[in-house]
């Protein structure tokens, strides 16, 4: 009897000949996305939901081989919920809050994500990347059946890209030979090794860490709790680190730091992985190895992400070390930022200045992620004897001294990016309001009626801006800059959660909300000319 097939072994979007391959002249598409990973599928869903024709090309026909990214944060789940597939991810995922840090054989530190009440989504879930991708493929198929302009072609590998003044020409290889198409815009979501980036000869500069990590994803019935366990210098992996974290279906992510000078083939042999696992978990464990891989760390990014008609998103644009779960989580924030901007540019409502703000805002996000993941990596893999001395001193002190614990860095987990300083923000006219709802922030969720506030916010069809009024007098409709804005008038009587998250000490508030649920501007009371000016700015017209 053979074991049942894993989802990542089944072709979910097998190659099928398309009419484009028989076209006399190259077919023109509005947007072509390269790569059907979490980022490529995400941007396709977002664009198609807003009515933009989008074609995804993938050199493969299956979801991610092996679990790869496993930690998904609240903000990407909220984004996926706007795209109609956030909740199934949580239903399948493992919710966790507690992390423990061990030094040698002692526990020296423990953290709790302490998720705040009143959000639809938890702070973090663990879920194999293949399930994440499967949910997005399923959603794309559903949307397609409902008539949305989205399609996905498996085993279609991009072999050349040629930038023209207002479009790109793409050559694609398939099992039945090559063909050519053109696209108004190309979005490269083709990963850290991005073939598109290489074809265009663009730089990807940063820092390489001289270290190797072995990932072993094992299936086992284990008595460990659903917590993130991280070891510095444990007895079973002397001088190195290790990580244990649970995924759905009794799959456990185990990471072993190996050091720099290793024999990759030897380390990947099942018998050598077995020796490591038994040293860590005991001789009596029973498990099967689902996936193993050895990876090195790099922290680097492109200088800018928009290059004429080619736009980079996710790992193709920026790469971080995995500690902190800032890879896929930031890629999903990229596409949330990009899709509505591209839609408005395609409509002629905004111009390339709005797309430039994608560069500004997401480079800001990438810098934040690179800074945090570089620091974590420096702590986990100290580069010098002195750096290790300080690291070990922090860990020693942390066991008894609370003051040392904030210095312990086994990964600073992904948090939503606030676009402080963005050219789209209007200076805060409500500085006495809650700081975490200031212009540039993603809106905070809270219970509202039978659902949650975020169910009502953001682009689901056309990329409208919205006006969120709280205990404020507002008109019933408002159109400015050629865009109708939905007005959502709420009061703190029926939704008391609004007070702490959106009012603070003020009596009323009017928020201008972007299609990606970020705050563009806020005031205490309604002022049509101020809202009009803020909208103009949020469309990039003042940049």
């Amino acid at each position, binding site marked *: 009897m053979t074991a049942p097939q894993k989802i990542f072994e089944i072709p979910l979007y097998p190659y099928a000949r398309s009419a484009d391959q028989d076209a006399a002249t190259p077919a023109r598409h509005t947007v072509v996305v390269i790569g059907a990973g979490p980022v490529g599928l995400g941007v396709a869903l977002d664009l198609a939901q807003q009515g933009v024709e989008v074609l995804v090309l993938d050199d493969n026909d299956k979801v991610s081989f092996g679990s790869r990214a496993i930690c998904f944060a609240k903000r990407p789940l909220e984004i996926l919920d706007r795209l109609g597939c956030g909740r199934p991810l949580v239903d399948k995922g493992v919710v966790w809050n507690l992390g423990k840090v061990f030094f040698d054989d002692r526990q020296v530190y423990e953290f709790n994500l302490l998720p705040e009440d009143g959000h639809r989504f938890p702070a973090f879930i663990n879920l194999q990347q293949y399930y994440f991708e499967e949910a997005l493929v399923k959603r794309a198929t559903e949307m397609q059946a409902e008539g949305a302009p989205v399609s996905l072609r498996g085993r279609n590998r991009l072999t050349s890209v040629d930038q023209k003044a207002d479009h790109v020409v793409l050559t694609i290889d398939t099992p039945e030979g090559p063909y050519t198409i053109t696209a108004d815009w190309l979005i490269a979501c083709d990963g850290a090794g991005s073939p598109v980036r290489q074809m265009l000869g663009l730089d990807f500069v940063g820092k390489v860490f001289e270290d190797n990590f072995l990932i072993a994803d094992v299936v086992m019935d284990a008595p460990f709790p659903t917590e993130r366990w991280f070891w510095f210098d444990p007895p079973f992996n002397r001088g190195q680190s290790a990580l244990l974290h649970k995924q759905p279906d009794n799959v456990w992510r185990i990471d072993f730091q190996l050091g720099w000078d290793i024999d990759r083939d030897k380390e990947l042999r099942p018998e050598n992985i077995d020796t490591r696992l038994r040293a860590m978990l005991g001789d009596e464990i029973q498990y099967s190895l689902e996936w193993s891989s050895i990876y090195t760390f790099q922290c680097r990014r492109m200088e800018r992400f928009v290059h004429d008609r080619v736009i980079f998103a996710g790992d193709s644009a920026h790469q971080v070390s995995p500690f902190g779960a800032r890879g896929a989580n930031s890629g999903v924030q990229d596409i949330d930022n990009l899709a509505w901007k591209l839609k408005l540019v395609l409509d002629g409502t905004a111009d390339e200045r709005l797309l430039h703000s994608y560069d500004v805002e997401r480079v800001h996000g990438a810098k934040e992620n690179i800074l945090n993941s570089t*620091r974590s990596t420096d702590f986990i893999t100290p580069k*010098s004897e*002195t*750096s290790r001395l*300080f690291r070990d001193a922090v860990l020693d*002190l942390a066991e008894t001294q*609370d*003051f040392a614990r*904030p210095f312990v860095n086994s990964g*600073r987990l992904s948090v939503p990016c606030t676009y402080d300083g963005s050219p789209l923000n209007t200076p805060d006219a409500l500085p006495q309001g809650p700081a975490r709802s200031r212009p540039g922030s993603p809106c905070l969720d809270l219970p509202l009626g039978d659902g949650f506030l975020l169910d009502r916010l953001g682009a689901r069809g056309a990329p409208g801006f919205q006006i969120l009024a709280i205990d404020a007098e507002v008109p019933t409709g408002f159109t400015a800059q050629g865009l109708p804005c939905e007005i959502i008038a709420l009061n703190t009587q029926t939704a008391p959660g609004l007070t702490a998250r959106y009012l603070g000490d003020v009596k009323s508030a009017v928020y201008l909300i972007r299609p990606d649920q970020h705050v563009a501007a806020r005031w205490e009371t309604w002022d049509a000319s101020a809202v009009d000016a803020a909208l103009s700015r949020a469309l990039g017209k003042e940049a």
Partner: protein
Amino acid sequence: MTMLNTTRNTPRADDVYQMLIDAHEGKTKAESDAFNARLILTLINHIGDADVIAQALKVAEG
């Protein structure tokens, strides 16, 4: 007697830690050791109070 502050007192812990590690970049072990000695003496002067320094020495003793 003034008590040593052993509560969390550095809101930007990651920034401060990076400053410390960056200060050692490119130094040999001997240079780093000498640097650390100068740093400790400088901070001791900032603290000033011998009682507080005595308590800190005890914490470092483990």
